[in-house]
């Protein structure tokens, strides 16, 4: 093989492997973030809120109930009727709780959900078990509930507690809440909570909360605020809707929005991230594309040179019976081979590079189980192979046609 041809192949190798590596980095970033976000349950759980504008109207209008949608028990029943919905629970939050574990104080918030449907929600406990429908004082701990966040200057630091949430399973913990009464004095109330399990990471609020029964949380809320919540007129601030699987998320979202509620879902975030990553990939792929374009010019150049050098040979072949298409196909096959070999070598090199990138990234970022920065899908490999062969083929067409149309006699005379 000629040195020139080898150089041209190297050009294709660089082009192909830069496309693959670039796109694989886009892929890898998307995969690791998507994996992070789509913890079990979170993708199939929709957060439903009362329409924010209607909430504002109601409070300003002094509890006036017009035709604005209210997220009360009737609405919860209606939500349950939507096709594809498995469970619906109102969510009641309580902030400002404190627990003491191992002589350390931790600020906690409670997230009250309906224990009657807890079994149907996609909450998974990593250890322990979920409380039953009647275990009113039992709770599940979020994975990061004992992790305290400290702000030092500009940076945020997560300090993991010595005590793991798992250590508390089966124990009773005491939570203290405070309120200021009418006389300006501070009052305290303690509540015993029995820990039955620890929740697997969801990527949502649950990770930093204690999941409790909503009746209990409502009771504590009433003590803290000193008044009874009028759920029927004011509604819950939030409800969680669990759906069958991710394929119905969009359909259910549409129906809930038609009921004039505001919906948030991980799916929406993933969708919008998807388009961000697509842009990232197009950008990175474009950089590789430029490299391949340069390779393409290299192939055209090499083929043109090679035809120039082999003019006499082409003339001889035509004289002894090669047809126009014989000559044309011969040169197109040659340039396609350059593209194909370059593509194959490029794929092998990018697979190696991908492993190296992940190794090096893993070394710097750390974390067990390795890090995926670069992720090469089979589709990407096939695409790269077809694309590089196509680049070779297309680059060869013009020179090949030029060669095929040489006059045999002029060609045979050239030296």
């Amino acid at each position: 093989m000629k040195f020139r041809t080898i150089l041209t192949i190297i050009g294709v190798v660089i082009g192909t492997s830069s496309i693959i590596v670039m796109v694989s980095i886009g892929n890898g970033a998307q995969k690791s973030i998507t994996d992070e976000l789509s913890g079990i349950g979170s993708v199939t759980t929709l957060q439903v809120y009362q329409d924010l504008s209607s909430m504002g109207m109601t409070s300003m209008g002094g509890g006036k109930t017009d035709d604005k949608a209210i997220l009360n028990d009737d609405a919860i029943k209606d939500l349950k009727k939507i096709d594809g919905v498995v469970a619906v629970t109102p969510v009641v939050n309580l902030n400002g709780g404190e627990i003491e574990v191992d002589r350390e104080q931790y600020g906690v918030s409670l997230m009250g959900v309906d224990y009657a449907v807890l079994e149907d929600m996609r909450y998974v406990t990593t250890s322990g078990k979920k409380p039953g429908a009647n275990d009113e004082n039992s709770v599940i701990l979020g994975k990061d509930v004992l992790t305290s966040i400290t702000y030092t200057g500009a940076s945020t630091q997560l300090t993991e507690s010595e005590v793991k949430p798992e250590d508390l399973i089966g124990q009773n913990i005491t939570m203290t809440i405070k309120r200021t009464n009418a006389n300006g004095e501070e009052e305290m109330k303690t509540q015993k909570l029995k820990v039955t399990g620890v929740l697997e990471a969801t990527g949502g609020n649950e990770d930093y909360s204690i999941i409790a029964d909503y009746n209990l949380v409502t009771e504590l809320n009433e003590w803290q605020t000193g008044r009874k919540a009028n759920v029927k007129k004011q509604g819950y601030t939030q409800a969680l809707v669990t759906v069958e699987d991710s394929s119905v998320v969009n359909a259910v979202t549409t129906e809930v929005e038609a009921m004039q509620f505001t919906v948030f879902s991980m799916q929406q975030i993933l969708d919008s991230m998807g388009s961000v990553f697509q842009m990232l990939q197009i950008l990175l792929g474009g950089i590789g594309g430029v490299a391949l374009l340069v390779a393409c010019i290299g192939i055209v150049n090499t083929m043109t040179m090679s035809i120039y050098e082999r003019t006499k040979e082409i003339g001889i072949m035509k004289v002894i019976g090669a047809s126009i298409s014989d000559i044309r196909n011969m040169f197109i096959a040659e340039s396609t081979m350059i593209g194909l070999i370059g593509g194959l070598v490029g794929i092998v090199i990018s697979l190696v590079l991908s492993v190296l990138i992940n190794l090096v990234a893993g070394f710097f970022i750390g974390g067990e189980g390795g890090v995926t920065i670069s992720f090469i899908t089979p589709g990407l490999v096939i695409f790269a192979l077809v694309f590089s062969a196509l680049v070779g083929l297309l680059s060869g067409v013009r020179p090949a046609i030029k060669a095929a149309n040489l006059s045999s006699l002029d060609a045979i005379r050239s030296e």
Partner: protein
Amino acid sequence: MHKDFKLGKEDINILKGINLDIEQGEMVALLGPSGSGKSTFLNVLGGLVPPTSGDIMIRDYRISEMTENELCLFRREHLGFIFQSYNLISTMTAMENVALALTFAGVKKEIRKERAIEALEVVGLVDRMGHKPSELSGGQQQRVSIARALVNHPEIILADEPTGNLDSKTSADIMEMIYRLNREENQTFVIVTHDPDTTKYCTKVIHMRDGLIESEVNQ
């Protein structure tokens, strides 16, 4: 038949009216001074360049009106060429050079090899079939090119000064071989030569001058 070449804006008349009949199996020698149009005539005859006016008929085929692709198919089956400068492909062995003519005719690989060796046998070069042209003498290279012209068993072989680059001993050998092929296979030969000695076996000797036939002698 006429042939003009464009030289700048002017058309110069190279072949100024050639009229010739050649029978199957004839051995035709084409003589004449350099520049008289012998090569041009041979190339027009083989369909490598089109005539400016007039007709060329080979059997029932009207060469002068064929498209390039038709000509190419025709050459494959009916014509063989031998050149003064051999025109072998330098990167291929003797055997591959001979077999190449069969590749374009769509002959299967094993058969190609078999027939290439057969053709090399005819020219007495089987023992050199693995050699590249640069490893062969001039006479041997010309014999490879003759084998290549023969391998398709064409009815007509056109040779343009086949011995022009060879010494007299080798020239005589090559001409002997050509006469033998003509006798044994009844192939029609048109040979351009400037050596009057080589015309003794020819059935027809044509002298050209300034693009015209000066004399035509049947022997």
